[in-house]
């Protein structure tokens, strides 16, 4: 297992790869990909029991990127883990590429296509129930944005999770407080997300979503609970680049050459 420090460096390198991908693509979601860099790194380096050489392994843990617009972060992580060649990364959003703007199941390592928001918790619930029906013990991890919690379907899913209580289910909410049109407080305030989750009868755990050691410890605690758990990971949208942090404009703004150079300099200054 890599150390927390190693994962921290991996997450920062992931941001540089994401920036290159979105710059080459001429579009793509940078802010929300940066905010979940540590979360994806810790999940794939320490928790997900998957086999990159055998992506369809039936007993693998499942991962659902409910916030599908963070596709660049997922693709770069999957390539680093060896699901496909890293040379594919620069084909993001190009005609014919399996790296669609949002993840599609035909790409090795993608367990469910996503993009239309608010569906991941439900999909993960279905997967967790499938393991129960089949008498298998693999786990399901779902990564949600906080903006997508606006969708009512999430709360339908929490009701159902509280009904069946699949112990093999863990959700992580990338709580970056910014959505497409602006700060969530102005667009649709989500308030105390952990309290909302707990009011459904589910366990919620909170941590700093940019601290790999904290993420690792919190995920371990969540997995140890004999019930579904939701981690609220406090993050910063656009984390790592001063002029992107907390800025809704960088939700999906194309990375022009000038911004690319400035952002890359900042990301390289911190290894």
């Amino acid at each position, binding site marked *: 297992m890599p150390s927390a420090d190693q994962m921290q460096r991996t997450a920062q390198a992931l941001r540089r790869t994401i920036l290159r991908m979105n710059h080459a693509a001429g579009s793509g979601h940078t802010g929300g990909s940066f905010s979940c860099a540590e979360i994806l790194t810790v999940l794939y380096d320490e928790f997900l029991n998957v086999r990159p050489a055998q992506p369809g392994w*039936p007993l693998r843990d*499942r991962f*659902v990127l409910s916030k599908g617009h963070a596709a660049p972060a997922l693709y770069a992580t999957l390539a680093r883990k060896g699901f496909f060649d890293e040379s594919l990364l620069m084909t993001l959003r190009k005609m014919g590429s399996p790296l669609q703007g949002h993840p*599609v*199941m035909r790409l090795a390592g993608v*367990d*469910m*296509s*996503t*993009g*239309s928001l*608010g*569906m991941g918790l*439900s*999909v*993960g*619930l*279905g*997967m*967790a*129930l*499938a*393991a129960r*029906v*089949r008498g298998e013990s693999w786990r399901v991890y779902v990564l949600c944005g906080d903006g997508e919690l606006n969708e*009512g*379907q999430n709360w*339908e*899913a929490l*009701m*159902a999770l509280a*009904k*069946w209580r699949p112990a093999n289910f863990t959700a992580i909410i990338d709580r970056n407080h910014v959505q497409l049109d602006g700060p969530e407080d102005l667009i649709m305030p989500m308030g105390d997300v952990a309290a909302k989750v707990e009011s459904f009868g589910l366990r919620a755990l909170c941590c700093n979503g940019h601290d790999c050691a904290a993420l690792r410890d919190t995920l371990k605690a969540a997995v140890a609970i004999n019930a579904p758990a939701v981690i609220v990971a406090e993050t910063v949208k656009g984390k790592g680049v001063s002029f992107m942090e907390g800025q809704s404009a960088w939700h999906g703004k194309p990375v022009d050459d000038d911004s690319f150079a400035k952002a890359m300099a900042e990301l390289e200054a911190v290894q």
Partner: protein
Amino acid sequence: MTVAQCEIKPMRQVFGETLVALADEFPDMVVLDADCASSTQTRQFATAYPERFFNMGIAEANMVAAAAGLSATGLIPVASTFAFLLSLRAGDQVRSLLAYNSLNVKLAGGYAGLSDFADGASHQSIMDLAVMTALPNMTVLVPSDITETRLATRAMLEHKGPVYLRLSRAEVEKRFDEDHPFVIGQGVQIQDGSDVTLIACGVASGIAQQAADELVAQGLRVRLIDMHTIKPLDVELVQRAAEQTGAIVTVEEHNIIGGLGAAVASAVCHTHPVPVIRVGLEDRFGESGPYADILARAGLSREQVVTAAQRAIAMKHTDR
């Protein structure tokens, strides 16, 4: 092919019985419902196989997305509730998860058409075929009698990929014997004729049969097709009917926009353009009332289908 005895059952009851009957043969089948199991009759499966049944409450979006998750592991989920809710309330989940990924999820849309007659337009489903047929990868089945309901349920489970099965609350007859040929994508020509072709699906197929009988009694040669698959449509059968009979009447319990009639018209328009009269709801909602009466307001009565057929035949002989 057709049977003389008069067995009558609610289609939903037949569906519920069939799920139970096929449970052992399809051990990967699981069933979900959205607090309508008593209505759709998936309750029969829930009682017999509680560990393979999930009542998801009144939350259709969650139900369909959970079905997607279940299917991604190789299970065969059957998600059941009212037809309008599956096609609209959970429409994005059906599109983004089931259709886009061609997941092996079966959607059982109950109480379709006007069959929830007393509850009124809020519960009736007159647009589900339009929604479902517009989704790439989706197969759309509309059984018309007891036998076809059984066979369509089996065919749906045997088929690999998403299927929408349109079911009725109404009582249906057993029109066909068990050897009735039911192959997805192949319409069934029930009788041959050369003056006009009636093409119908679901409960309306029975109405079309009555109209055909009367037209034959009038001395007309009527071809009758039961089109249990709306998608993929049996284009060859439709085009042959256009070519050989020169006039078509479609009969369906659906808006004439986006349903069977629209599919048939687009199948013939560029190869054998012939008069196609679409009988169904003329772009309006249903209402509460006795089933036969609200069907009749939608043109779905023997008399009105007879009239439509006569009109279609007359159009053949007019300069257009």
